[in-house]
């Protein structure tokens, strides 16, 4: 029987695909009647050229995320000019606009291919700058930064290996900090609350909070936050899908596109609010996973596994390889590629991996913990079974 790749090698098939005419349609219709067993393979060949072969987008995840963010920012700024008062309202609208992002991966058409060998290929992507957008300017940073806001609208920015920099940020203006894959940052808000932002995150925050409440938005990515207690001013974190109301506390919140959104509480108390549903309170060591349709599922977890990234290590306990690679991929800005039925991705990993600057050490540890082999050639990484 012909394999779908055989059809792709066949010029008559390709010609039929690119520009069909009556004669070709007739020929392939007869072919299907005579070889009904090939119909599936023909379909797969068609899916392959349509989705991969001649229509492969080379817009990577980071670019897609940043471009969407830019579009949102422009739209927001346009609205601000006309309606300054509905400022927060639009900010909330923006978080709503993001709901669709989490659905993205499941919607992408995938080609199923039977693997000939067990192989996972990774590629180191080009690094992008961290970006801080205020009402006045956009500032770029090559290295991780620590930003500290004070009550008078001053921001101190400390960049690794660079001198301390000070900028003015106007009160109550909404600012954006974009941390691309491969980078991390911390941010101390005007009230003293401290945020650790993981790779691939976009956070919106005002330089000063108003007198009634404190609000920020994690439009994508992951953060750990230690909120300064203040009974008079409740603290809210908005995400696409749900809001977190904080009662003085420490917790981690994950809002990556393509992954389930979740909140892990470390200390104190928070409640989760989604449209049309009752407020849900969670207790320390509890993880709430958002279903996407307004409800949450809770479970007890080992908190360390979810917040260790901010201390510079990842902790795993029988975690599947694909999740491990996803986390490492975000941290070092790598994209991993493998077919769904590669068994390697189901291997589990237990132990700690230190996220050192030496990427080779990290991958060697991963290989050791998962009994796989790791090889690096220029920007490519190959993981194979032993």
């Amino acid at each position, binding site marked *: 029987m012909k394999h779908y*790749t055989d059809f*792709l*090698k*066949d*010029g*008559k098939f*390709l*010609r039929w*695909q*690119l*520009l069909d*005419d009556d004669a070709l349609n007739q020929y392939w219709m007869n072919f299907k009647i005579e070889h009904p067993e090939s119909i599936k393979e023909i379909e797969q060949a068609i899916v*392959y*050229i*349509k989705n*991969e*072969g*001649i*229509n*492969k*987008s*080379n*817009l990577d995840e980071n*670019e*897609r995320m940043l*471009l*969407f963010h*830019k*579009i*949102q920012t*422009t*739209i927001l700024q*346009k609205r601000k000019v006309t309606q300054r008062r509905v400022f927060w309202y639009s900010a909330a609208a923006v978080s*709503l*606009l*993001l*709901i*669709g*992002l989490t*659905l*993205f991966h499941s*919607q992408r058409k995938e*080609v199923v*291919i*039977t*693997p*000939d060998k067990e192989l996972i290929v990774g590629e180191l992507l080009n690094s992008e700058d961290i970006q801080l957008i205020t009402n006045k300017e956009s500032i770029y940073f090559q290295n991780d930064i620590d930003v500290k806001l004070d009550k008078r609208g001053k921001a101190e920015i400390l960049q690794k290996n660079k001198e301390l920099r000070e900028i003015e940020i106007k009160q109550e203006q909404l600012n954006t900090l974009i941390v691309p894959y491969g980078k991390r940052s911390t941010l101390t808000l005007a009230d003293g609350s401290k945020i650790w932002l993981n790779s691939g995150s976009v956070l919106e925050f005002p330089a000063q909070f108003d007198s009634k409440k404190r609000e920020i938005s994690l439009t994508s990515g992951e953060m750990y936050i230690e909120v300064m207690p203040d009974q008079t001013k409740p603290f809210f974190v908005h995400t*696409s899908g749900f809001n977190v109301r904080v009662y003085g506390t420490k917790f981690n919140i994950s809002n990556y596109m393509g992954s389930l959104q979740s909140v892990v509480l470390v200390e104190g108390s928070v409640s989760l609010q989604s449209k049309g549903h009752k407020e849900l309170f969670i207790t320390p060591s509890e993880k709430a996973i958002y279903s996407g349709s307004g409800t949450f599922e809770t479970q007890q977890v080992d908190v360390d596994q979810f917040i260790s990234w901010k201390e510079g290590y990842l902790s795993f306990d029988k975690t599947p390889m694909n999740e491990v690679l996803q986390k490492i991929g975000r941290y070092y800005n790598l994209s991993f*590629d493998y077919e769904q039925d590669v068994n390697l991705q189901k291997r589990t990993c237990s132990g700690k991996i230190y996220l050192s600057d030496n990427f080779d050490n990290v991958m060697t540890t991963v290989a050791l913990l998962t009994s796989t082999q790791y090889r690096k050639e220029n920007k490519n990484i190959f993981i194979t079974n032993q």
Partner: protein
Amino acid sequence: MDLATLYNLYVNDLFTYGCYLGFDREIVKDAVHDVFVKLTANKGQLSQISHIKFYLFKSLKNRLIDLHKYQKDQITLEKVDPSVDMPFNIHIDVESLLIEKEDQTRVKNTIEEMLASLTDRQREIVYLRYIQEYDYNQIAELLHISVHGCRKLVSAAIFSLREKFGILITFLTILS
């Protein structure tokens, strides 16, 4: 549908289309940005647009034609006809295909040779017709030509592929 959903559904196709039209990726990104911003500016009309994807393709193409005219104006004073002189180059990528490297090259070369025997506009039609599955009316609108002209271009393309690849390749098929 909200903006994020639309964006996720179509951004890859729009970006690829813009790149195939010969623009730099940063320029294409800017154009895609403008298209989505424009879409929300006309939000009242959004529900009235029946084919949102086609609408997006059309505004992207128009935006790029403007940019193209602007770029050309910098160099030459001649009148530019965007329906004629914009390139269209389809990128072939078969690296994810699990076959021998040699066979990959063969597949890639065959498709490339076929496309190379067509004109830029014919290649654009192949892309719009085969990949995006637009009908003649829509393609004609995107190319700023008449429906009749569009059909003629397709017939000519089919004819030249048959001439150049028909006999030889049927022969090879029989052999294998």
